[in-house]
């Protein structure tokens, strides 16, 4: 056993925080770093129960008295602690999931239980060095906030939070944040570029086309935070994108030249309406129009998204044949409950899930028909994780479909911009 696994009060073992330090040091050596740098905060994904080993690790650390030394938030767990009856899996998983969650709380982590820590009131600023886990949070922190994190994950996220340090490599450095691949968006109508589907689909394509490289998106003039959230989450699911630039939109890309650090792109990809339409179609795994559920909020729904949901739903009731789930963080739920929206949405048939996510854990009851989502990430993972057939669409399509009780499509969304001959014709690799 590594030092101090059984090291309670008075034990002669060295405190097990040394395990965190030793793991971090060995990890740093593998990354090739020459030094460690301090971080200001951490976000931990390791609190999700993956089996007995993940629980053994959490218990070993927590029972040794290890404490995080920087403000640390927690990603989702396996169960909704506020609405535990929603969980439909085995009871022993509930017990293990709860114990995991308890250990991470005992080590001083804030019980945020959200995959969107960037939607919390306190969030990192431009240039801040942080250690975040969860792929969508990582890509958002780097791209949208300009905070600096590598791709941290299970085990090392906790080690970074305990030691307060990370190896100085990759996305922590100026050089490691420069763009590598130019992605030109051409021939897409402005109306299309204002839709949530555009960003989720573009993200899905980016992940497939650039893998783990840093893409620089040119040709999109504006985006809401929720759009960039959807894009990043999709790109980090279909690929391993940990950062992207969007020229004129994201903080480290005021110009194309700035995004590439004055160098030429290693590769150029052009994306038009046809590539986007094909990618969106790929995210739909079924032709079935019967609908068993709608699931939105992957990543966790924001306050702004709740306002859009209310507007689109306009007080109408969800069709009785299907379930409608929105996943969000408990902090956001508190805000919408303060507004009275929670009760209003529940009266329309909307079920709000917190602390976890519907693609990770069995919550949907499996009513016959497809599951519709506006999340490319959900569409990518849920068929494999939980065996659902998925219809991918915009938030508007999700809401209309939920009210009608069957998949409803707005067929106009990928139309080519009028007068744009280049639109939809790719020249480098974006064909599908």
């Amino acid at each position, binding site marked *: 056993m590594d030092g101090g696994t059984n090291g309670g009060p008075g034990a002669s073992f060295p405190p097990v925080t040394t395990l965190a330090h030793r793991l971090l040091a060995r990890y740093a050596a593998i990354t090739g770093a020459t030094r460690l740098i301090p971080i200001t905060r951490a976000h931990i994904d390791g609190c999700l129960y993956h089996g007995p*080993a993940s629980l*053994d*690790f959490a218990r070993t650390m927590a029972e040794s008295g290890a404490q995080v030394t920087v403000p640390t938030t927690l990603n989702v767990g396996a169960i909704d602690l506020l609405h535990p009856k929603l969980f439909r899996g085995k009871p022993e998983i509930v017990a293990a999931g709860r114990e995991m969650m308890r250990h991470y709380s005992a080590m001083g982590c804030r019980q945020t239980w959200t995959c969107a820590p960037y939607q919390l009131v306190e969030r990192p600023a431009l240039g801040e060095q942080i250690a975040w886990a969860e792929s969508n949070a990582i890509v958002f922190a780097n791209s949208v906030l300009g905070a600096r994190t590598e791709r941290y994950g299970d085990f090392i996220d906790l080690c970074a939070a305990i030691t307060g340090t990370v190896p100085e490599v990759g996305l922590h450095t100026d050089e490691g944040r420069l763009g590598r691949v130019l992605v030109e968006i051409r021939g897409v109508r402005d109306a299309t570029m204002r839709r949530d589907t555009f960003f989720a689909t573009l993200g899905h394509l980016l992940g497939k086309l650039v893998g783990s490289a840093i893409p620089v998106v040119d040709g999109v003039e504006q985006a809401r935070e929720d759009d960039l959230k959807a894009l990043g989450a999709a790109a980090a699911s279909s690929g391993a994108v940990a950062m992207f630039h969007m020229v004129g939109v994201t903080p480290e890309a005021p110009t194309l030249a700035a995004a590439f650090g004055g160098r030429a792109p290693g590769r150029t990809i052009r994306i038009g309406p046809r590539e986007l339409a094909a990618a969106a179609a790929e995210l739909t795994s079924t032709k079935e129009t019967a609908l068993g559920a709608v699931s939105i909020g992957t990543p966790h729904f924001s306050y702004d998204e709740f306002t859009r949901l209310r507007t689109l739903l306009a007080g109408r009731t969800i069709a009785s044949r299907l379930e409608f789930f929105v996943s969000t963080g408990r902090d956001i739920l508190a805000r919408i409950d303060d507004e009275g929206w929670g009760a209003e949405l529940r009266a329309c048939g909307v079920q709000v899930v917190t602390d976890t996510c519907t693609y990770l854990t069995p919550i949907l009851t499996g009513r016959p028909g497809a599951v519709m989502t506006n999340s490319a990430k959900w569409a990518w993972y849920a068929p494999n994780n939980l065996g659902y057939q998925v219809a991918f669409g915009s938030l508007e399509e999700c809401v209309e479909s939920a009210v009608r009780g069957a998949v409803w499509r707005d067929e106009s969304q990928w139309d080519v911009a009028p007068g744009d001959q280049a639109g939809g014709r790719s020249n480098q690799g974006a064909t599908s």
Partner: protein
Amino acid sequence: MIAIQVLVAGAAEGEVLVLDEPLSFWGGVHESSGVIIDTHHPQHGAALAGKVVVMPAGRGSSSSSSVLAEVIRGGVAPAAILLGETDPIMALGAMVGEALYARTVPVVVLDRDQYARVGGWQYARLAVGDDGMQLTEGPRASHH
């Protein structure tokens, strides 16, 4: 004999199992049996337990660390993992497995020539020497 780059040190031996493509342990390896369950993987159905697994790279999710630690806990882990490129996620899983369960799964990185050579072996043995780790071709120890 081959001198190699060490991510997690340790002695091991076993039959060589070459994976033709990168493998994500998360979603790709069954946690309690150590069998490859990724249906798109060319070695789908192969059992990793006790094998010297030669693989080009890990892939994707950092949760692969947890799955490697889990198969170490369950006693169905590879005897050793020989990678074509550095992979901190695989190394972390092995480090944590070692720390929690006192079972070492060495993880090393081979260069291109070494990788090609080992790929032709039936059986491989890793040893820890004074000047690093060495990799040699079988025969099985039990034939003594």
